[in-house]
């Protein structure tokens, strides 16, 4: 299947290894990955910070770049949730009927990576091997936005050699929230504290999630406290070959 990759601006810039792993997983499963080069950002940063004119420009750009694609896959639940939940809102606010139609047609074809693998392709075993103790943080947008449930877990459970350990208080937010982490840095840090305690308590060597953004928050906290726990996007675990 031809799969258009929406890498997201954050992965593109800060975490290329997440994008590379995503390509490797999809290609290993026999898909033809294309990367439309005109893509930049879904607009989530501007949307959630209140700059809705810029967000709308970026939404229009996203739609223009991907409108012809049959399936668009992104290794980020929060970007996909932004597209699915808020593009209709932006089109409505702009009173842009043409955009609303395009959005309605395109959004069902935009999927988060694990959602695509499990719900669209019906695959849970992607043939990876990863022999470490791993815990999993279900990010808010994957859980309450995209309603992924245990879709990512079903992939992790099928990884050869992986020892899975449950994260206490897993469904609680990590406190990231985009610019919230900066504008309300102290509150964000207080929320993060609980998440860090819970991650460390698992004794896991690796913390994984479907969003690099939340992992930047938790990983940033782990790094600051001198913890040895590493953060990996789930694609990087799924890409690990035997």
């Amino acid at each position, binding site marked *: 299947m031809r799969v258009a990759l929406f890498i997201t601006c954050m992965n593109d810039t800060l975490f290329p290894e997440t994008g590379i792993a995503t390509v490797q997983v999809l290609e290993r499963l026999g898909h033809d990955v294309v*990367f439309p080069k005109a*893509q930049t950002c879904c607009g989530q940063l501007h949307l959630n910070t209140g700059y809705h004119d810029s967000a709308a420009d*970026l939404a229009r750009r996203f739609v223009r770049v991907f409108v012809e694609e049959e399936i668009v896959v992104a290794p980020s639940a929060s970007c996909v949730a932004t597209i699915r939940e808020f593009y209709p809102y932006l089109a409505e606010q702009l009173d842009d009927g043409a955009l609303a139609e395009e959005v309605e047609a395109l959004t069902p074809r935009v999927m988060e990576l694990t959602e695509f693998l499990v719900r669209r392709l019906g695959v849970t075993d992607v043939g990876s091997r990863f022999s470490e103790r791993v815990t999993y943080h279900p990010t808010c947008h994957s859980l309450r936005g995209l309603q992924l449930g245990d879709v990512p877990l079903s992939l992790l459970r099928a990884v050869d050699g992986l020892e899975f350990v449950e994260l206490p208080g897993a469904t609680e937010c990590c406190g990231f929230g985009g610019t919230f982490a900066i504008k309300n840095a102290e509150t964000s840090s207080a929320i993060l504290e609980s998440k860090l305690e819970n991650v460390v308590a698992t004794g896991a060597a690796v913390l994984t999630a479907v969003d690099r953004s939340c992992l930047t928050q938790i990983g940033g*906290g782990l790094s600051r406290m001198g913890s040895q726990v590493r953060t990996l996007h789930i694609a990087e675990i799924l890409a690990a070959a035997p």
Partner: protein
Amino acid sequence: MKSGFPERAHVALRDMQLRRNLALATTTIRGKRAAVTGERGDWEELRVAGAAIKRRVLRHLEDYLLQFESSVQRAGGSVHWARDAQEANEIVVQLVRRTGASEVVKVKSLTTDEIGLNDALTAAGIRPIETDLAELICQLADERPSHILVPAIHKNRVEIRDLFRREFGLPDLTEEPTELAGAARAYLREKFLSTAVAVSGANFAVAESGSICVVESEGNGRFCTTLPETLITIVGIEKLVPTLNDLEVFLQLLPRSSTGERMNPYTSLWTGVAPGDGPQEFHVVLLDNGRTNVLADEVGRQTLACIRCSACLNVCPVYERTGGHAYGSVYPGPIGAILTPQLVGTAEAGSLPFASSLCGACAEVCPVKIDIPQVLVHLRGRAIRERTAAGAGERMMMSAAGWALAGERRFRWARRVGRLVQRPFVRENKIERLPGGLSGWTMTRDLPAMPRRSFREWWNGR
């Protein structure tokens, strides 16, 4: 610049006693709510029904209000319309003055807090006495309630014991809950028997019958609505439900969502005046105070469906850490973050819509399915548009980011600039200290440095 949420949270977050009180209390209520909503196979249907009834009321609010007015009058009550807080307070003060009373007993009511009724009464020489135990605690301590349902959630037993010792002149009082409740009871019973006027809010107002419904846990509210000669009820115009039958839905949704009980201990329903039984004079004050402005906004209007259960507060990671006072508003937590800016404007409360990580836990538990994250984002847009939030630095950075993301070549160029600019800050592939507006991040978190090669460059090189 006026103090906003971050400044008030800064103070609250340092109060470790408050943080422990809050974590314990919210975790307990959260667990109870989850248990009693989980046991209902039709919980989701109840939510859908509650949401639908409330939205119907909002669509036809004018009709229901007029119907309610004539129902109350038919039942022997009087109806007064108040455009804003000042009008409502003037009406209440005049009604109390007419009775000659110098004290009023009060049923716990957020709406009267919203309009600052206690201050208005006090200024008019009338002493308001809160009768809900936790409201009484806040009143005696001269503090604002910090939770919709558990106003004194920020205080523990020992703090309350010290307060009661001082205020009631009981130096030997212990912190045993039964003793604390006993002290308050002795004080309040005397007030119930001697006070001629009561003021209440309303959980629901029924259009077809003119009935008012108040739900509570202690029974003190019922003393207020039955013993005094005169009862004045202040009702936000969004509190209407069409028929008594609709209460079937809400009297299931509300206690399970709020206190985590299957049923609250006291549900009082009264309709107008019954000769020889209960208050012989009954007044309803219908309050707008910004609500019609909320109604005018297609996205924001769902906020008016709120039944003040406070489930959103109890699951909110922000509220759990900062408590209610950080919101600087009568309505704290997620619902306060969307209701207050709409009632008072973003110039007053522009920081509130940003006081959320948009985790969505609130929307998941809301019994009337208010999409709180959507309204938060909507109001952030309004605050930025109205220039009541964000400084020049942020605006410049967001403009720059918008420019850089508007084209592939600009994006590539911006990354090259970023790699140069980050250089002085990078140590061992990470950034431990950022300047200016970004310093909030590195206060507690490291940031990975931008790698030499972006994904795009890797892709182009394959």
